[in-house]
């Protein structure tokens, strides 16, 4: 299916539209190596776009390629199932599994428990591992969601306002971690944020919707 | 004005309905007939439910109401009688002998359908007859106890059991089945359906209808459905 991982090829090649209610949302862009920031007003369709790339919302038309792999192509009737896309998704709401402990939430998509400790420590959630999601504060839940997406060993990351409702210190730590992932593993990464400073720091490329 | 409310054993359904039709044709208000198991009806009467006439499928429940002093004095009478028969599916042989081991072995060849021999009247008569004829010990383990005599009949009709013990009135109404044998008089206590007016009766036609049922005309109507004189 042409094109290796990472390297010189494009990370995200997206050209999709989907109907949402009366409106049609969508975007066309190509992003190079590293991380890309998605910037745009509320309701512009950022979340919808992420869902289309993750395979959770079927575009009406267009194509999605990530690292050269075709994930969706309306014309060629290709639609890779979400579980086979290997995306690490942090949703806008935490979406933690309420019947699983924090530990089992974190490990849900992980091949092994390896890495759990390090990520939990960095995200400052190590003390929460045996708690139930409903007892977490807003920021705690968000950090668990980030950890869960990273531990899934993804081929690319889709982060919908991952740092919202985090205080400075933890935001900084999380941002450092995302930067480290970006630089060390060179995973393609698409980040939604409303914070220009964050956008500046995280995104090699900024896409405005 | 409404006709009297008559509580009657379920097996009286056709015969009593025909009698009620005849009564209506004579210009009376049609009696209201409620058919259910004698036990259920007797309990309703015992609880004080207001009805006019009660027709039981056996003496036992009528005795029970009599003990509770719920019957209008002097109104208890035997309405009709019935016979007990063995029905068989169309392929089964008629009963070679109506006695002893031979009878037992033939009946015990497959499941034997009958109403519960410890509870339902027809089952109790059947048990008494089989005991008297010396076939009970052989047959007992093969008995399937149906909820009512009609349910026993249905089992034979469906081929679930080759033979069943039911009333003659039921057997006659089933075109698919043959009567393989009739239990002799005296092999079981006489099968009679007693009738009585209840103390709670308020309908002034109740007594007239009761008398009509035990009159020759009433007997003749019910005789058409296979009931015998008591």
């Amino acid at each position, binding site marked *: 299916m042409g094109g290796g991982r990472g390297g010189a090829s494009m990370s995200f090649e997206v050209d999709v539209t989907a109907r949402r209610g009366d409106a049609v949302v969508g975007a066309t862009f190509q992003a190079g190596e590293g991380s890309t920031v998605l910037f745009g007003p509320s309701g512009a369709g950022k979340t919808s776009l992420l869902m289309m790339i*993750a*395979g*959770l919302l079927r575009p009406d038309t267009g194509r999605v390629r990530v690292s050269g792999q075709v994930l969706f192509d309306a014309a060629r009737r290709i639609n890779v*199932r*979400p*579980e086979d*896309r*290997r*995306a*690490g*998704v942090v*949703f806008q*709401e*935490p*979406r*933690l*599994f*309420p*019947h699983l402990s924090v530990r089992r939430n974190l490990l*849900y*998509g992980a091949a092994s428990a390896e890495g759990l400790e390090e990520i939990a420590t960095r995200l400052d959630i190590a003390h929460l591992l045996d708690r*139930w*999601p*409903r007892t977490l504060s807003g920021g705690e*839940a968000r950090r668990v969601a980030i950890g*869960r*997406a990273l531990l*899934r060993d993804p081929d690319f990351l889709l982060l919908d306002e991952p740092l919202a409702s985090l205080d400075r210190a933890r935001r900084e730590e999380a941002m450092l971690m995302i930067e480290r992932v970006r630089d060390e593993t060179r995973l393609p990464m698409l980040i939604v944020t409303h914070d220009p400073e964050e956008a500046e720091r995280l995104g090699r490329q900024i896409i405005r919707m | 004005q409404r006709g009297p409310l008559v509580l009657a054993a379920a097996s009286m359904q056709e015969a009593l309905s025909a009698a009620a039709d005849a009564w209506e044709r004579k210009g009376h208000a049609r009696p209201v007939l409620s058919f259910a*198991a004698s*036990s259920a009806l*007797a309990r309703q009467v015992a609880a004080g439910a207001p009805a006019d006439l009660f027709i039981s499928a056996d003496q*036992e*429940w009528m*005795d*029970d109401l009599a003990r509770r002093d719920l019957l209008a004095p002097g109104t208890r009478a035997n309405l009709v009688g019935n016979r007990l028969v063995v029905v068989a599916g169309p392929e089964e042989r008629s009963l070679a002998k109506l006695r002893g081991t031979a009878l037992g072995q033939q009946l015990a060849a497959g*499941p034997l*359908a009958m109403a*519960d021999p*410890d*509870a*339902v009247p027809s089952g109790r008569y059947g048990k008494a007859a089989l005991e008297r004829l010396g076939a009970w010990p052989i047959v007992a383990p093969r*008995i*399937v*106890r*149906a*909820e009512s005599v009609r*349910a026993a009949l*249905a*089992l034979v009709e*469906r*081929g*679930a059991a080759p033979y069943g013990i039911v009333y003659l009135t039921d057997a006659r109404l089933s075109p698919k089945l043959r009567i393989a044998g009739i239990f002799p008089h005296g092999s079981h206590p006489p099968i009679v359906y007693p009738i009585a007016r209840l103390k709670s009766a308020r309908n002034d036609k109740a007594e007239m209808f009761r008398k009509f049922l035990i009159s020759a005309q009433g007997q003749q109507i019910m005789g058409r459905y296979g009931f015998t004189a008591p």
Partner: protein
Amino acid sequence: MTDELETIVRLSLLIGGVATAGTLPVAFALAWLLARGRFPGKLLLDGLVHLPLVVPPVVTGWLLLIAFAPAGPLGMLLERWFGVSILFRWTGAAVAAAMMALPLMVRAIRLSIEGVDQRLEQAARTLGAGPWRTFATITLPLALPGVLAAAMLGFARSLGEFGATITFVSNVPGETQTLPLAIYAALQRPGGEATVWKLAGISIAISLIALIASELLGRRQGRRLHVL
């Protein structure tokens, strides 16, 4: 407890247990289809599932009898394939009980499945879980209150099942005579009330134990559910 009584109780538990356990997966599959599926004839399936509730039990028993009689369509198949008949057997009683419990179980499970937030299933999919794993690890556990309720309802209903059972498999002591059938027999005779009370008391005790067990299980589970 007399031997006879012990047999009746054991048989009731066996039949109720087998009927409930056997129906649970079927009920879950049907509930799933009705909650999530989109197919023509869905309303018809829904209606079919409800039938044993609407039609009087004796009729259900009678239809079972027609179907499983030696010459009936299912009876013939069972005979030909497995060489067995369920007429007058405890297995037949379990089939009757299962049939009657089915609509109750489907409804309970369906309500719970409809209550599962599908966004959680989406999250599981992005984490690499295929439809089956998602089902087993997310949907099923989140629908557990309904499954427990279904098991409870099914067991209780089986324990009380009378009309379809006696019509279908009759009242064969030691084989199909469950508590309700014994109670019915006792009710048929004047003075049988004492036996009725005793047997009804046993039914109630059994179901209370089942109820408490399911409540406690559900409570343990409940604490975890229900907040994202």
